[in-house]
């Protein structure tokens, strides 16, 4: 038991911070916020050249072979500078791909991702089914030597920047049911994306698939133990959730820094407003909340990196971080007063991201419910009698 980072980890975080602060400035974040793709190919090239895109992917595919914990340390730094969501989307997709077969497309995809030649995203949630696979309707059916994909996905992150969309789809019950992951070119015939307008100003879309042709080797299925891809997707969601927490910790910490700096400089009544107890208490609450979120997140990341069961710890981290980040931004607004709400000030950029990350992979209630289940409490589940509907 030693709650401290190693020298190597501190160095890794430091070099990530230096690169990101230099390359992902608030002015770039603002420019991307108003662009249709939300993506910078120049920034992506820099990240890939510094080996950050495949930092936790196998060295045999061009990655750096680091653990999920180190990837988490990078995400924390990414959260500080509001790195565009294409990075988290691609990381999530890579976590799905690395665990699925067949071997050839997997190797090719991972190599392209590590080289910085591919942005990827996962299409999971549907209009009435956000995270329960049994209730999803998007499905594939086999015709001759290929598959046809039909259905609609919602809240697909980075839909226009992505070179490939990983669509989680039901498989026919005739071959055992379960799920597969279809690799779809967003420009393919039958794919239609309708952008959402989001609070975080991050590109997301509802993407529908109308009998989209998927070649046999573009339909990924499970590892050797099972054909069903769902357990793999589920495991990747768990990793992505922990990484989201790391992003939230970094973002909240940066907001805390900006705020502490402001209250030291801003004078009223002839002294810094930071000398007032009421102000100090807000800063203390923010700091305590962020520090707690950091170690809850590190614990979740550590368990994932060690291959230990981590559902309990991931849910604790997300249940903590979801309100933490928003609350920290709210207190920051309180302490900045009018100065913090003019759009020239950068504070609202974090306030928007805080709300986006709050609900991504489930907010506080979703994870409290999951945690109650992990605690062995009898959590009521929704009826699933016709769970196979839509399985074609």
């Amino acid at each position, binding site marked *: 038991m030693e709650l401290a980072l190693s020298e190597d980890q501190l160095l890794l975080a430091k070099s990530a911070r230096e690169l990101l602060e230099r390359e992902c400035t608030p002015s770039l974040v603002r420019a991307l916020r108003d662009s249709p793709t939300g993506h910078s190919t120049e920034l992506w090239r820099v990240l890939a050249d510094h080996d950050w895109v495949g930092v936790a992917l196998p060295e045999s595919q061009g990655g750096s072979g680091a653990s999920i914990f180190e990837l988490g340390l990078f995400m924390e730094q990414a959260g500080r500078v509001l790195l565009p969501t294409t990075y988290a989307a691609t990381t999530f997709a890579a976590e799905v791909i690395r665990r699925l077969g067949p071997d050839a497309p997997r190797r090719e995809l991972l190599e392209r991702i590590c080289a910085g030649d591919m942005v990827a995203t996962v299409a999971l*949630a549907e209009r*009435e*089914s*956000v*995270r*329960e696979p049994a*209730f999803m309707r998007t499905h594939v059916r086999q015709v001759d030597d290929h598959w046809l994909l039909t259905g609609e996905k*919602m*809240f697909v992150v980075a839909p226009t920047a992505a070179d490939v969309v990983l669509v989680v789809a039901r498989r026919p019950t005739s071959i055992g049911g379960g799920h597969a992951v279809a690799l779809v070119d967003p420009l393919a015939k039958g794919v239609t994306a309708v952008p*959402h*307008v*989001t*609070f*975080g100003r991050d590109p997301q879309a509802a993407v529908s698939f109308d009998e989209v042709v998927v070649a046999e080797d573009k339909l990924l299925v499970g590892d050797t133990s099972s054909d069903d891809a769902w357990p793999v997707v589920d495991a990747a969601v768990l990793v992505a959730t922990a990484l989201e927490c790391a992003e939230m910790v970094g973002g909240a910490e940066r907001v805390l820094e900006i705020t502490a700096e402001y209250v030291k400089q801003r*004078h*009223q*009544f002839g002294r810094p*407003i930071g000398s*007032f107890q*009421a*102000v100090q208490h807000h800063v203390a609450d923010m700091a305590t909340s962020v520090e707690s979120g950091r170690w809850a997140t590190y614990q979740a990341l550590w368990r994932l990196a060690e291959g230990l069961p981590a559902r309990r710890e991931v849910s604790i981290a997300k249940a903590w971080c*979801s*309100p933490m980040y*928003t609350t920290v931004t*709210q207190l920051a*607004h*309180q302490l900045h*007063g*009018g100065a*913090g*709400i*003019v*759009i020239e000030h950068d504070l*609202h950029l974090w*306030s928007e991201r805080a*709300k*986006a990350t*709050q*609900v*991504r992979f*489930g*907010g*506080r*209630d*979703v994870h*409290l*419910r999951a945690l109650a289940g992990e605690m062995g409490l009898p959590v*009521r589940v*929704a*009826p*699933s009698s016709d769970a196979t509907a839509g399985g074609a």
Partner: protein
Amino acid sequence: MRPSFAFTAEQEAWRQEVRAFLAEAFTPELRAEVGAVGSEEAGASAAMADFRRKICEKGWYGLNWPESYSGLGKSAVEMLIFAEEFEREDAPTIERAIASTIGLTILHLGTEHNKQMWIPKISNGEVSFALGYSEPDAGTDLAALQTRAERDGDDWVINGQKIWNSVAHYATHEWLAVRTDPDAPRHHGISIIVVPLDSPGITVQPLLTWSGLRTNATFFEDVRVPGDHLIGEENEGWTYVTAALAFERANAFGSAGHLRRLLDDLVERCRTTTIDRETLAERPEVQMRLAELEVDLEIAWLLAYRTAAIVDSGRVPETEGAMVKVFTSEFETKLTDWGMELLDLYGQLAGGDPDAMSGGRLERTYRVAPVGRFGAGTNEIQRDIIAQRGWGLPRRR
């Protein structure tokens, strides 16, 4: 019996009158304008000016003024009913609130000449005000204000800068707090002067905010104003500012009408949103959250009507007004924050998206909410007021 938690027939009739007015005058086009850019910026349009004129014609700029000054003599409870209905419909009321507040301040503390000069023009809408209080270095510490007014013959000559000067881009006059005696103690050298906003030497610069609302930075360079534009007595301005702020606080932060509407909308949205084979409303954790919001909203509502009753009894609700302000402004953040989280991934959809809740009003209110907590006296200062003036705790400094 007293107390009574029911509205009288007269109060209900008043609510229906306001509601009927809004149903007719606050058209779908005006609603769309408010939803698109926020109500303050929306105020600059011709349609919105027409809407204000209709409010004026009803005599509602003088809602709470004495009947002897062409006011309607409405009670604080009736004012609150009025505000609830306007906020429920998202109808802008800031210009009317400022007019009422300034009018009341002039009626209570102004000279007879002030009253003759300004009250008729305020009540018929000919004169409208921006409030010139804050400066870059005088926010919470308002008495640090530096904008200077000096006598030159019969005139005042004004130099300085105001900030957070909302509606200055379409109001006709500035209700300007200036320093007239730089040698007096901070609170004793301040005066209020009414400045026509079309005077030479005034520059109004827009400050756009996160919520989409526009406010302004306003600059005064050798601006010349007739001597009789002084309100009340020279160097007594702090008293008038304090009074106007107290009236404003009672006016602006009492009502939770918009929050009632948002919570109603949120409950309905939870009933009709199905995620993973159950509606959100079926989930126990969602039910508990909605129920907690209902408790808080009821408390906000009770505190507001209690404060109104105190005003109507003739006492200044210093402590209670601070309680309403703190509680309701923080509840506004809580309701909108929780509401967006409760709706799961749908909660992040913003105005302009067909699936955004209440046409984006929920997320827009989240972006407006910070202003409620630090504006018109920060919540930290309000808490000091409750502890120090309400409960006699010692005051530092």
